[in-house]
């Protein structure tokens, strides 16, 4: 399988008043074509920073990465043309109608006006939003909003779709719909999906392969089954046990350091 994303030592350091903070120390990972990759890790592990680098929102301070054939540092504009991104917060103005947001998004991807209007209708049909086209996005339910966010990210038929905690805050029905949608995207369009989540059942059910990051580096990777065998002791282990074994449930060295008085 061809690699759609590959990174080598991808790193990001933030300058702060108390000295530089290494949010991401060096990520090495490969994502294959048509794969659904679950990107897991405790809060502060560097998940979002990595995602923001891979989507060109944040410049790396070290390492290299290629996304769908485009070098992340040398050709961010090329990367932008082939990726779709859904932020945790979504990305629509509540005062604007679904139709206007979809058409604007098409135009941002440089579709001619008539083509952008047609594409908006296609996307609405595909994501079950046709009945809501003239509604303001602020009036949509959580699940409808999420489908709209994804429709916007699919405007230009991206090779890779990045989803940042896509089901946070959704009710169980909407969550199941979204899982179905992600699978359909991969099966019907061959879209590669890179998703972060805090829900381990979601990672277990949806992802072909998992990458667990901790303290800014990759701590473990493999299929859910392989990780359970290696870190949980058996295939019957829960992903929760596996996750805790990888990231270490005991106190970290920082927690046991003597307290200055």
């Amino acid at each position, binding site marked *: 399988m061809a690699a759609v994303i590959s990174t080598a030592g991808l790193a990001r350091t933030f300058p702060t008043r108390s000295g530089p903070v290494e949010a991401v120390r060096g990520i090495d990972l490969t994502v294959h074509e048509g794969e659904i990759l679950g990107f897991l890790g405790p809060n502060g592990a560097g998940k979002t920073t990595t995602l923001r680098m891979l989507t060109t929102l944040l*410049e790396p301070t070290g390492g290299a990465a290629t996304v769908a054939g485009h070098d992340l540092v040398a050709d961010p504009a090329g990367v932008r043309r082939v990726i779709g991104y859904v932020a945790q*917060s979504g990305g629509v103005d509540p005062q*604007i109608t679904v139709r206007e947001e979809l058409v604007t998004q098409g135009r941002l991807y440089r579709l001619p006006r008539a083509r952008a209007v047609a594409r908006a209708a296609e996307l609405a049909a595909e994501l079950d939003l046709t009945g809501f086209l003239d509604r303001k996005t602020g009036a949509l339910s959580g699940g409808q909003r999420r489908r709209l966010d994804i429709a916007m990210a699919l405007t230009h038929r991206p090779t890779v779709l990045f989803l940042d905690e896509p089901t946070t805050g959704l009710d169980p029905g909407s969550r199941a719909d979204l899982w179905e949608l992600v699978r359909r995207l991969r099966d019907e369009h061959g879209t590669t999906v890179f998703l972060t989540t805090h829900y381990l059942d979601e990672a277990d059910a949806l992802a072909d392969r998992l990458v667990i990051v901790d303290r800014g580096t990759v701590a473990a990777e493999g299929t859910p089954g392989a990780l359970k065998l290696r870190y949980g002791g058996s295939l019957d282990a829960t992903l929760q046990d596996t996750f805790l074994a990888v990231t270490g449930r005991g106190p970290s060295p920082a927690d046991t350091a003597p307290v200055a008085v």
Partner: protein
Amino acid sequence: MLLHDTALVYGRYLRQSLRSRFALLFGVLTPLLYLLFYGPLLTDLPLGGQGSSWQVLVPGLLLQLGLFGALFAGFTVILEKGQGVVERMRVTPVSRLALLLGRVLRDATVFVFQAVLLVLAALVMGLRAPLAGVLIGFAFVALLTVSLASVSYALGMKVRSPQEFGPLINAVSMPSMLLSGLMLPMTLAPAWLDVLSHFVPFRYLVDAVRDAYVGDYTSAHMLYGVLVAVGFTALAVTAGTRVFRTAGS
């Protein structure tokens, strides 16, 4: 592409402004109050310049409109950051310069529209000024808006909350207004205040517009005003675009 992208972003935000017509008119209220309740106080005072007191006051009010209005433009980008709209656009191939230009040109449109309303009201109050001078005044309002709104968006992208943003802007806008002689010409000031005011860029703009309002288009004030306005605008747009390119670091 830059033109296409700028037009697209401009259209989006102009429609946003038109949706809140009330706010569009409300912006002109403060300078209008000055015009009605402060302007008449000046009519018999010796202000030192040529022309009537209205030719001194109205240029100041025009720039006050731009100063206070445009400096607060960044508030909207703080909201948009929270909604994820800014990141959603930055992930598309859209030009980073267009993300800024589309917004600041919208602001320039809104403030020139308000400036026209203000001048119409001033005509009723007694202002008489050459048409060319009035048009030059609008051009300065547009440049001032583009530069200050660029600075404001850059700040809005940097701060985390509206609570941080307000005090920051007030700390800039109040001294700028007092030190640039918007309300009364700085030629009335004691020497130290006059000297100090030359370090505030808006001083040059207001002097230039006052000259334009009395038909003096080739004065040294006009030259300095144009140089400062154009230079400040170029700097502010460059800085603002940089923030839209690298935001989040």
